[in-house]
């Protein structure tokens, strides 16, 4: 009957206990000055030391096998931890992509040596990684990537340019989508491959790009005839497109698509409880509770080995819309008083979020592209 499936997965006692442990840890860290809460912390809050602490707590690579430094817990356990980290505004950007995405790709497609060498370090928060999909000429139209890998006697030679690579400046590795053979007529999804690239290799140049707020968290990464070993090819030559698409459910369905501005809601309530119309707050609560239900359902499906790609696109789409709605609602509440009567911390938070908001509906697939993904699932494209 329904076209999309979100199984109901009520929180277990074990998960609730884990939630309390994470909260307790974060409260202590906050008290001892371990971090300063901020919005959009999974992109902007780069703090390798903090990531290491999380690694020691066992909260990175939670779902990975023990033999690779993981903790063999369910995707729902991981979801509990990521929710708490985001709500606290903890600086988790350094390891976020390794934990969410790169680790999973390595588990699926990496060689035994790679898994043994890299994953345990990632799980300890001591090695970070980034996503090398976008290029200057290939944004939404990802299949247009021009970065090229050609075979050599000892492996591969990589040349090209990636942009917008979040946390590349502190990363050891990037998973690069590159062309390994020409597209076949109109099918451009053919001939693409994924590579695990060690960013310390000669010929790699990473330079920061300042975002709208003047902060550097994303980068341009140049590959100037970088010599790669044969095992840098991740998975199967020519399967890069499919492998890349396989990452998207993890990339799009998590709470980072709807909890990065929650801190503004919490702080506005704290400061202006009497000014918030119940209807406005209730509306935000209802949407958030629904998004959590959906996100949990996806985590359960991923845990069960399914690929809920379109459902993930739905969560990102609805999550982005919710966050924009949250921002404008809180902005309205704050505007009920003169700025001179409002604590400057709250105003800074509002302004900081305003400066980040435009990126939400771009990164990880734009609104328009996601609508297309959903439309395809509806059978109309």
């Amino acid at each position, binding site marked *: *009957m*329904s*076209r*999309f499936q*979100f199984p*109901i997965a*009520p*929180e*277990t006692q074990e*998960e*609730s206990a884990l*939630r309390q442990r994470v909260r307790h840890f974060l409260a202590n860290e906050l008290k001892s000055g371990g971090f300063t809460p901020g919005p959009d912390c999974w992109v902007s809050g780069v703090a390798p030391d903090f990531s290491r602490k999380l690694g020691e707590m066992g909260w990175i690579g939670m779902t990975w096998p023990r033999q690779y430094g993981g903790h063999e817990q369910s995707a729902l356990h991981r979801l509990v931890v990521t*929710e708490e980290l985001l*709500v606290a505004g903890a600086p988790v950007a350094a390891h976020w992509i390794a934990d969410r995405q790169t680790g999973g790709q390595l588990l699926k497609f990496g060689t035994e040596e790679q898994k043994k060498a890299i994953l345990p370090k990632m799980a300890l928060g001591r090695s970070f990684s980034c996503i090398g999909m976008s290029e200057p000429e290939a944004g939404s139209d990802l299949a247009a990537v021009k970065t090229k890998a050609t075979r050599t006697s000892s492996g591969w030679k990589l040349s090209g340019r990636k942009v917008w690579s979040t946390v590349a400046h502190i990363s050891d590795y990037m998973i690069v989508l590159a062309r390994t053979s020409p597209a076949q007529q109109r099918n451009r999804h053919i001939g693409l491959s994924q590579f695990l690239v060690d960013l310390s290799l000669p010929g790699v140049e990473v330079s920061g790009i300042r975002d709208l707020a003047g902060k550097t968290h994303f980068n341009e990464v140049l590959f100037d005839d970088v010599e790669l070993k044969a095992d840098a090819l991740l998975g199967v030559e020519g399967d890069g497109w499919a492998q890349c698409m396989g990452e998207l459910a993890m990339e799009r369905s998590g709470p980072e698509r709807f909890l990065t501005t*929650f801190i503004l*809601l*919490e702080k506005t*309530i*704290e400061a202006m*409880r009497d000014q*918030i*119309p*119940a*209807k*406005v*707050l*209730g*509306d935000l*609560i*209802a*949407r*958030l*509770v*629904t*998004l*959590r*239900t*959906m996100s949990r*359902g996806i985590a359960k499906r991923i845990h069960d080995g399914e690929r809920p790609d379109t*459902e993930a696109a*739905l969560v990102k*789409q*609805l999550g982005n819309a919710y966050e924009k709605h949250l921002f404008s609602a809180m902005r309205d509440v704050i505007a009920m008083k003169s700025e001179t009567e409002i604590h400057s911390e709250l105003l800074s938070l509002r302004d900081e979020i305003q400066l980040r908001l435009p990126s939400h509906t771009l990164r990880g697939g734009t609104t*328009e592209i*996601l*609508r*297309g993904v*959903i*439309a395809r*699932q*509806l*059978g*109309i*494209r």
Partner: protein
Amino acid sequence: MEPMLQETAARILTDLRNDADALWSTLEENGLTRAWVSEEDGGFGLTPADGFGLIRLAGAHAAPVPFAETLVATWFLTEANLPAPSGQMSIFIDGVQRGAPFGETAEHVVRVHGRSVSLHRGRLNEPIDSVGEDPLSDASKLSDDIIETSQIGADIGVLFGALARAAQICGALDAVLDLTISFAEQREQFGRPLTKFQAIQHLLSEMGAEAAAAGAAIDAAVASVRRDCALDETAIAVAKHRASMAAGIVSEHAHQVHGAIGYTQEYELGRFTRRLWRWREDFGGETFWANALGRAALAEPGPLWQMITKDGGK
């Protein structure tokens, strides 16, 4: 829901959708109207979730009979340990509803006032105009004529009604989406089907997203329903809010995609959208439930997140 049951119900609701009398008697003959009555009292004794599955199906077929109302009425009666009569029933939550839906044809009306439940004779003959397709009757004189009365353990009237309407809405949203997609695939303008226009794809995808969100919210709420228990107010408030909100967006887009043909009485769309516009108001629309959720949250002193994740944040 059991596939057999689902199939039977869906077939009846489809085949007889234009003949209310035959539809009702076939639903009744198949025992579907007593799905929630225990087996010893001649029902199916279905789980709460299965019953809501039937209600959702009723919505998906815009059933022109009080199938959902009768099921809800039997729930109230059985929760109050009262016998459930056969025949069409309506429900009337005092102080909440303007009138009793299908009050004209319903043989009985179950009235809920706080924790008290009473069974009344139906056939109310004072119709009220409403945006909906289904008839609504003035029920203000009900109280004079009580057949039986008893109490339930908790004040569940509005919540249960809201959940039932949310379930109907969800069914109807899926149906409107299907209908609109197949229309857009067939209708050609500028030499191509409407589905080839990106603007149309985007409207349809937004409809899909709304239906999916409403569906997830209602599933979560339905999963929380137990017999002999107070209901989970937050989960139901969320479900009715999300469903009512989706009802507005989906109806609006569906009419836009359909063009003028969708604006006729004859075409099928109106059977759904007129009901959606009624059901979204019934037992509180999105604003009502947002207010309830917001007030509850503002009354709690701690951080909102703790409230949202309390008891696993159902």
